[in-house]
């Protein structure tokens, strides 16, 4: 992968980023209304990108993305279909490496280290950045084995029962499955399967959890369960979530990134600001449903 932007300054010095200068909350600065979300806002950035271009073969899917994702907050990504939200998500934990035709230029930092540096092991990266996919994809193994999977492959085998229980409790699934841990994960309902996948992702205690439309295959009840869960998760984890549901983004996220067709990041700001008073006319049109 290309490292041509390696010489850019450390993002903690916060210089020169197009978007962040107006949006990134600084220590001590007034954070725009968050009382209903009631969680401490830190300004620390975990994931940041600078001038990130992504190509599939010859077609460009993302153009010069600059973003700074804050720690222990929920960042939502919205935008019309095909604008590159999933692509960006997959860049963060290098799942794009699995796609042969995918080429990445620019810089994407996780905790001040460019993840596309040649000395970064993508496997080690993915152990710190968990992922939940659009459609629930539990392994055809028992519920217990599903949650224990990450622990096993990462060799964290001490106290496994306890960790599995904790993960299932955090995913609000424990009460429903505690008596049937040795049944197949595929026997669960869709919403339960998705929470199982979330439990699987948090069992290994990652720092960031990426969610690609985690509620798109769920009914309203299961969706609201997953939404509640995401708000809880943000107390401990950084959550980046892709969604097509504006209300959902407005309800659960602290920050919102709007991608528009062509793979541009058009606006990135506090959720309330984006929804109530967007900078760009195109974003306003998109949010109010005039196009997209």
């Amino acid at each position, binding site marked *: 992968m290309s490292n041509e932007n390696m010489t850019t300054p450390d993002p903690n010095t916060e210089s020169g980023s197009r978007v962040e200068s107006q949006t990134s909350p600084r220590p001590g600065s007034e954070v725009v209304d968050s009382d209903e979300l009631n969680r401490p806002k830190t300004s620390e950035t975990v994931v940041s990108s600078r001038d990130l271009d992504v190509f599939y073969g010859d077609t460009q899917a993302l153009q010069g993305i600059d973003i700074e994702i804050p720690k222990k907050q929920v960042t939502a990504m919205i935008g019309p279909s095909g604008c590159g939200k999933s692509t960006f998500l997959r860049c963060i*934990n290098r*799942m794009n490496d*699995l796609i*042969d*035709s995918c080429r990445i230029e620019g810089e994407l930092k996780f905790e001040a280290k460019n993840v596309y540096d040649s000395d970064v092991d993508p*496997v*080690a*990266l*993915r*152990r*710190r950045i*968990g*992922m939940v*996919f659009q*459609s629930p*994809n*539990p*392994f*055809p193994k028992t519920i217990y084995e599903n949650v224990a*999977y*990450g622990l*096993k*492959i*990462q*060799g964290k*085998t*001490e106290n496994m029962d306890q960790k599995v229980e904790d993960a299932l409790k955090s995913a609000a699934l424990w009460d429903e499955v505690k008596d049937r841990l040795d049944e*197949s994960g*595929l026997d669960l309902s869709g919403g339960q399967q998705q929470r199982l*996948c979330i439990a*699987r*992702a948090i069992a*290994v205690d990652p720092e960031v959890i990426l969610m690609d439309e985690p509620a798109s295959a769920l009914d309203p009840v299961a969706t609201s369960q997953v939404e509640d869960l995401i708000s809880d998760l943000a107390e401990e984890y950084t959550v980046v979530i892709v969604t097509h549901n504006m209300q959902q983004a407005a309800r659960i996220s602290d920050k919102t990134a709007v991608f528009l067709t062509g793979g541009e990041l058009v606006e990135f700001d506090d959720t309330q600001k984006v929804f109530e008073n967007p900078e760009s006319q195109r974003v306003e049109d998109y949010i109010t449903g005039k196009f997209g």
Partner: protein
Amino acid sequence: MATGHDGPTGDWFGNSEQISRLPGKVFAATCLAATLFGIVMVAGLLVYVTKDAIRPLTANPGWFLVFFLTLVVPSTALLAYFGRRRDGEATVALTALGIPFFGLLLGSGVLMLFIDVIGIFEWLAFVAATIVAVGVILGHRRVRGRTSFLEELLVGVVALVGLGPVTYQFISTFPTLPQAWLIYLFTFGLGGAAIAGLLVARRRNDRRAGLTAFTALFVTVTAGVFIDPSTGITPPVWVILFTFAAIPTALYAEGVVRRRQGSLPVGLFFPFVVVAGMLVGAVLVDLLGFAGPQAWLDIQFLTSANSRFPEEAGIYPALIGSILMMVVVAISSFPIGVGAALYLEEYAPSSGPLSVVVKFIEINIANLAGVPSVVYGLLGLALFVNWLDFASGIVVVGGMTVGLLILPIIIISAQEAIRAVPGSLRQASYGMGATRWQTIRRVVLPEALPGILTGSILAFGRAIGETAPLLMIGAAASVFRAPNGFFDIFSAMPRQIYTWVGQPSQEFQYGVMAAGVVTLVTVMISMNAAAILIRNKYERRS
């Protein structure tokens, strides 16, 4: 909206047949006819051959009547009754009959290997080496917490390849050695009872139940050793057949009883009805003096060697030869085939210059699957006999040649199975931070295994019937004793059948040959049945 069309609204539901179904109906009928034709042809052939092998017309009609009354009527009636109850009792009944039947077949195969091929002390050395290997792995786990798969593999290979032969040498210097029956009892009987006990303990979540099961099984198998050997049930026969037939049956019965909780699973008594019917029938026929058919296919045929006289001719050495050959086929083709398929599907680059080479290889594998078997015979002859200097006509050469023949089939079917594993599962695994190897071992392989096994066992079914390669590599036309190892000359069933067909006497050409064909087909169908069972078992899991 619905009546926007200006046609008459009265017959929108199609009663005037505007929508033609004719082509579809014709197509369905043609397909049905083709299927029936195929089935009838194959079944007809089998019935014809079986008729020659059994010669039912030579039997006294009374013989048939007796068995019809004692065996056929009661068991069919019972099955029909179970079938009408529609609570799965018929399945229980048939499974309870099938498990001991296949267990007996498998046990007989193992028994033959022990009588003719594997020395009892070699076996002891092998078991000892395995125990040491397992002990090392468990000990290491206790100290270090866990073992990697590679370490386990390494220990296993060292134990079998290095430790086994050394132990054998070591054992053979002992002045006194345990008696054969003790070795059988403590390797097969104890091992089988222990596995069953563990399974019961796990399924019931109850250690005491497991222990009870273990004790009951082990006491029974030990008691059986003291049966008078003149009945034909010698200790090895008893122990091996008990391990392969009785223990799985007992496990199955235990499972059914546990699931039914309370209500008695009457289906389990079906095998007793069948066996009792056979015994009563046999006794009655004997008392009434009704002669059975003078079948070519009988115990004598299965247990004796070929002979100049058709009445004395048998298939035993060729049967053993085929089993040994299949062992070599499986060992030489299965790991390589699955490995190649895994490489092509999971590792090989799908873009870039190397991907062209990979595509080329894949196309060639597909082509190799269609190369005639005679050509593979020639290849085996050139490769193994002329080039690698093996003796011609020995078991390994036959097995490896036929192994080469089915290798492309195994690769292709394994590739299909691996490709059928949903990509979302791989994504999930990689997303959790699994390496490629972890993903393959923990997600892809378990998921693809039923498919891989089904494809491979079907390929083995093809392999056991191959004749042309055996002709090319010089397998013996007929041998009079079973091969006593993998480097001994051998003949296989199809080769033996081919020899019989070429004999001048009619009895060989029709009778003995038919008996051989039925034996071969039975072995092959058993293998396919096993394939189907395995597939169903794993498919139900997910």
